């Protein structure tokens, strides 16, 4: 049992290294541990998916069963009978799309302002921006609600969408870091050619910042899709409910809710779009998580 040492390969010499059995034991243990951990994270989702196809008699037994004895896709149609999926889906899409457009446009503009121009108190303002990221939402919640209530915005989508058009602090931070990384000489040559600041921004910088904008877009979609407290407070009217609220009502209101297998079917319907986006844009998801830990 021999293998090529990486260090040897790096130096261009193929050195054969005999590794002690303890090494292979360690590796085996490592992978066993990784598989066990993965199961911890993924098993709940697999169980959810499986249960959503089971007959009711198979749910709630001990030990739990994993494979449906009969596959029952009608759990989904049954769930749809009680739960107005179409309406909640449409509402969620409206909120998602308008929040997405607003936060991308405004955050990109503001981020560029912080990165590209020098102006008095810029650094202080940016410090405040970072501080707002740490401000608990509890302090904002009540006055904002009172104002929306006064101006008649309760039971509309505005409270969930309009704030996004004034820049998302985290996206601004993310975009600024990205713009700072773009070479300056690029700009100087564009400026010599007589391009205006607006044109430099829209025609050169925004296309260059596409990777950062994609990360923002994914985080924004994920936020809108997952948001619970906002819709709970502002959207009282049943016709305005989002997927999150619809699913909550479907599973928790006595009399209105479905049985467990139908509940899981409903849950799967809400989760599938998010997981699809996640698998399509995995790289950007990880980048987004990474960037929240960025140094510098």
């Amino acid at each position, binding site marked *: 049992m021999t293998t090529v040492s990486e260090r040897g390969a790096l130096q261009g010499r193929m050195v054969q290294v005999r590794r002690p059995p303890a090494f292979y034991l360690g590796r085996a243990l490592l992978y066993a541990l990784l598989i066990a951990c993965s199961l911890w994270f993924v098993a709940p989702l697999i169980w959810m998916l499986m249960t959503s196809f089971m007959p009711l008699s198979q749910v709630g037994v001990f030990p739990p069963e994993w494979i449906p004895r009969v596959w029952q896709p009608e759990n989904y149609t049954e769930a749809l009978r009680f739960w107005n999926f179409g309406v909640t889906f449409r509402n969620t899409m409206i909120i998602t799309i308008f929040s997405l457009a607003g936060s991308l446009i405004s955050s990109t503009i503001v981020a560029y302002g912080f990165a590209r121009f020098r102006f008095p108190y810029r650094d202080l303002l940016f410090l405040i921006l970072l501080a707002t990221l740490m401000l608990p939402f509890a302090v904002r919640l009540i006055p904002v609600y009172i104002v929306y209530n006064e101006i008649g915005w309760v039971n509309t989508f505005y409270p969930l969408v309009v704030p996004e058009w004034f820049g998302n602090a985290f996206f601004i*931070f993310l975009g600024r870091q990205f713009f700072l990384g773009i070479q300056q000489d690029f700009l100087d040559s564009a400026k010599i050619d007589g391009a205006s600041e607006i044109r430099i921004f829209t025609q050169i910088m925004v296309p260059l910042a596409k990777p950062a904008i994609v990360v923002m877009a994914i985080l924004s979609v994920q936020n809108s899709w997952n948001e619970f407290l906002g819709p709970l407070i502002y959207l009282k009217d049943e016709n305005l409910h989002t997927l999150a609220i619809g699913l909550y009502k479907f599973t928790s209101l006595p009399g209105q809710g479905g049985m467990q297998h139908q509940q899981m079917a409903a849950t799967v319907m809400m989760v599938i779009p998010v997981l699809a986006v996640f698998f399509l844009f995995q790289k950007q*998801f990880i980048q987004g998580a990474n960037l929240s830990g960025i140094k510098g």
Partner: protein
Amino acid sequence: MTAAFGSQWRSMKGKREGWRDLSPMRRREALYGLAFVSPWIIGLLLFSFFPFVASFVLSFTRYDVINPPVWIGLANYNEIFSGDSLFLKSLGNTALYVVGSVAIRIVLAFSLAMLLNSKVRFLGVWRTLFYIPSTVPIVAISMVWIYILNARYGLLNWFLSLLGQGRIRWLSSPAYAMSGLLVMSTTWVGVTMIIFLAGLQNIPEEYYDAARIDGASWLQRLLRVTLPLLTPTIFLNILINIISAFQVFNQVFIMTQGGPRDATRTYMLHLYNHAFEFLPPQMGYASALAWILFIILFAFTAIVVLTSDRWVFYNN
């Protein structure tokens, strides 16, 4: 991010430029800059600054949304500190959740990141598997965990029974309900793990080589190289997790509504009840609760930030 905060703070000191010192060209640039950031400044005033001040003022009033607010001085605060038994209860529960979940997340996320950083194959696959549950909407994941934590047929008790443990009434007994929520909090370990993993991958290999040549053991390398160099990341993760754990609301609201017997009544749930469920609504009282939370969080953040000079090591 907080490192960014620190460096921003340092670079700001000593530099003061007013409008009058600027040349016409610089003034033009400054105008452009302000124009670009103006949406955020307006948003800051509307959605952060105004509510921040307004909730402070409201906390000295009685306000039910229908009638105009009545100034009652410190009465809300008096009531909270002397007459509201659920205030202390919910604060205690929240403290328990903060300590438990932050410890779980930091330790687990760090351990997982260490595993993934030991030159494993299919790194991307493992990372994805650990991260998946973090992407699932909170309502959906709560629905699933209601059944996982079920005492009679839940997956967790089944798993424990394989290890020889008897049934535990996770969500239905006051003694174990909070532990149930803590077990559930492992769901979001993936986010913290990814940040740790990025931090680990930034540590130059040469440091480990040098340590190996000096005969350092695995444990010595961990304690003397990895951990000190990772302190900025640990610092950031602790801060992010403390702030979000203090405001835990969604899963509690969805899964237990604070029960059984207030064992999972968290601070945010208490605040929410006063503001949005009580009739008539107690907006003033809830604002006072919000400000107390803000002061507690501010104190915690300040402690973490101020002590960071002693234990956070910046490599620049």
